[in-house]
Each structure stands twice: as structure tokens, then as C-alpha cells.
């Protein structure tokens, strides 16, 4: 299992994320896309306005392979799991870079590595809502 991280210099706007996710999902070797970034809560979490609705234009819906997925973060990293049995990692990276260059308006880093946890750990049971 090979993972690739796309790390833009700036947080992506919802429009960019939608476009990026749609284009990435069209690459054959892409098996999974995970977007990561600070949360955009649906309700105001603290203060005198706690519990009130929190309209936010950067929240939205992603279209991935015909399915609609909720976008509740402002994306700062994208992890992509790719299947190396279909083509070489260099070819896959080239495709990913092309998509990123077309979509992301700022600079970005891209690299292969291990980003997801291999096994569950006690941290996963702590109920952290961050």
C-alpha cells in the first residue's frame, strides 16, 4: 500500500478542494482520498453564541466517483492511497502532480510516505473531537 501526501502552501478554498477531489478520483490508480485540515463546525462551539448555526462558505460537498461526500474542513493536506500494481510510482506521481498543478493556485509539496496509522492505538478511543 502506497500513500502520497499533497501539501499546499496555503489552505485550499472549497472550490479548489472540490475540483481537486473530482480530478484525483478520476485517476485509475487512486484507491482512497483523505482530506485533512482545521474543522469548520456546523454550530458555534464556544462563547455567548454557542449552539447557534455557523454558516461558512468553505463547507460544502465533494463529488467523488458519483458519490457525494460532506466537506467539513478547510483542506490543508490531502492523503492519496494509490495502487502501485497498476503502474509505477513515478507514473502515478506524475499524474498527481499534473492534477495539482492544474488545480492548486499556490505552491505545493508532494511526496510518497506512510501517513495513515497501520493499527489502531489507544489514542483512537479517547473521544478527541479536534
Amino acid at each position, binding site marked *: 500500500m502506497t500513500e502520497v501526501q499533497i501539501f499546499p502552501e496555503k*489552505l485550499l478554498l472549497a472550490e479548489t478542494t472540490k475540483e481537486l477531489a473530482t480530478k484525483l478520483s478520476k485517476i485509475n490508480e487512486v484507491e482512497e482520498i483523505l482530506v485533512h485540515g482545521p474543522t469548520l463546525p456546523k454550530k*458555534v462551539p464556544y*462563547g*455567548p453564541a454557542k449552539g447557534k448555526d455557523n*454558516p461558512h462558505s468553505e463547507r460544502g460537498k465533494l463529488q467523488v466517483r458519483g458519490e457525494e461526500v460532506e466537506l467539513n474542513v478547510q483542506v*490543508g493536506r490531502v492523503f492519496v492511497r494509490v495502487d502501485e500494481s497498476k503502474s509505477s510510482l513515478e507514473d502515478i506521481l506524475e499524474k498527481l502532480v499534473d492534477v495539482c498543478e492544474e488545480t492548486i*493556485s499556490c505552491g505545493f509539496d508532494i511526496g510518497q510516505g506512510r501517513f495513515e496509522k497501520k493499527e489502531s492505538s489507544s489514542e483512537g478511543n479517547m473521544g478527541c473531537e479536534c
Partner: protein
Amino acid sequence: MGYEPNFYPGTTKVSESRKHYMDPEEDLEKIREISDDEVTRLLHHREPGEAFGSVHPPLEEMDEPDCPIRELVEPTEGAKAGDRIAYVQFTDSVYFAPTAPYIRAWMYMNRFRGLDTGTLSGRQIIEGRLRDVEEMSKKLLTTEVFDPARTGIRGATVHGHAVRLDENGMMFDALQRYKFNEETGEVEYVKNQVGEPMDEPVNFGKPLSEEELIERSPIFREDGISFSDDEEVVKMVQRIHKLRTLAGYKPHEIEGE
């Protein structure tokens, strides 16, 4: 010759900027107009036109005990009127915001009266009498210490000061209190400081350019002016560190320092 405070050591632009903010004799440059009512709406403590809430009668009507300190210190307008305590809080991005939380603390203490301020990593609160807080807020919102893209008025949910800017160059705000208008290039506040939508947006104009921000910012950064570039600042910080390490709260007891 009288004593002239230096306010901050160093000769770099960052040091000069810190001195400028801390020196009460130097005026802060006014760069935008915001009305009193707009400030009131942003702070959310009262409606525009509504009376100031109070916690005691005006001082003139109170029978205060004899006290030399009361005679010595002129009360602020808010204290005279018996206003309740209110707050305003600002978040400053680490990406060359025009000011930074700890600089704000020094600046407030030198420039304003009748306030209590608290510094946290990414935000700075002012507590004071309501009308004093409104007056201070207006100065802080209309002058060079506020940039609509890199500074935020955030009473709660302040997270964002150390997060990357977005593609429009705006500091992250989970409550999206302000929006970048792509057509005009200006920033509008659409929610008050606690995240409640406002009936009318408040226009803060265009954000400063990166070059202007680097010119004004009192933040040492490796990609701007590095802390280690300012010999006098490094010397002062090392001296404080040394005295504190060797002598705790009694640096005067160290001989030869």
C-alpha cells in the same frame, strides 16, 4: 538631560516597529474609517444607540471615602459613568501580521488607561469599562495595527493564528467572521466578534500587500528579518535568560553583571 525611554533594543526594522507601537508619543497611522455604530455592532456588547450597561451609579453621585489614590488618579470616562466591564479580543497571524499579542500588551499599557489585558499565544484580550473598550477598539480597528486579512476580532473560537493562510491570503477562521470579496478585493466582516451574523456587513477595505506587511510587522521570522540578525536584541534576551537562570527573581544579587 532627562531620561528618554528606549522601549525596545535593536536596530532592525522589526525593532523599530516595536518601538513605534510602544511609544505613546508616536501616533498610529489611521488607514480606514469605521463608524462608532459599526464598532458597537462588531463588539456585540450592546445595540447601537442603546445605553451603556452599568454596575454602579456615576462616581459623582457616589459618596466615596477619602483616599489619596482616588484624588491622584483621574478616572476614565467609563469609570466615571459606572459602566460595566466588557472586552474585545484580537488574533494576530504569525504570517507577518501588523502586530503580535505580546507587542499589543506593551502597546496597550503605554497608550491606554483603565484596562486589563491578557496575552495568549495567538490572541490578546482587553477588559475594561464598556465605553473605554469601544473607544480603544475603534483606535485599534482603524489604524495600522489592524490588517483585515492577518488580524481578527475574535471573542471566542480564536483558532487560526498559526494556521496557513488560505488561497486568498486570509487567516483561517472556523466561524468565518469575515469574507474576502473577490470582485472588489476588500474584506467585509459579516459576523460580530462572537460569531453571530450581523444585519449589515462592515467593510474593512483591502488587505495590505505582503511587502507592506513585512515592512510594518514587529514579528521576527526566518523568512523576513531573523531574530539572530539583531545583535542588541539577542544580547538583551541572553542577558535576561542568564540572570534568570542564575539568580531567579534576584538578578541584582549577582556580582559583576
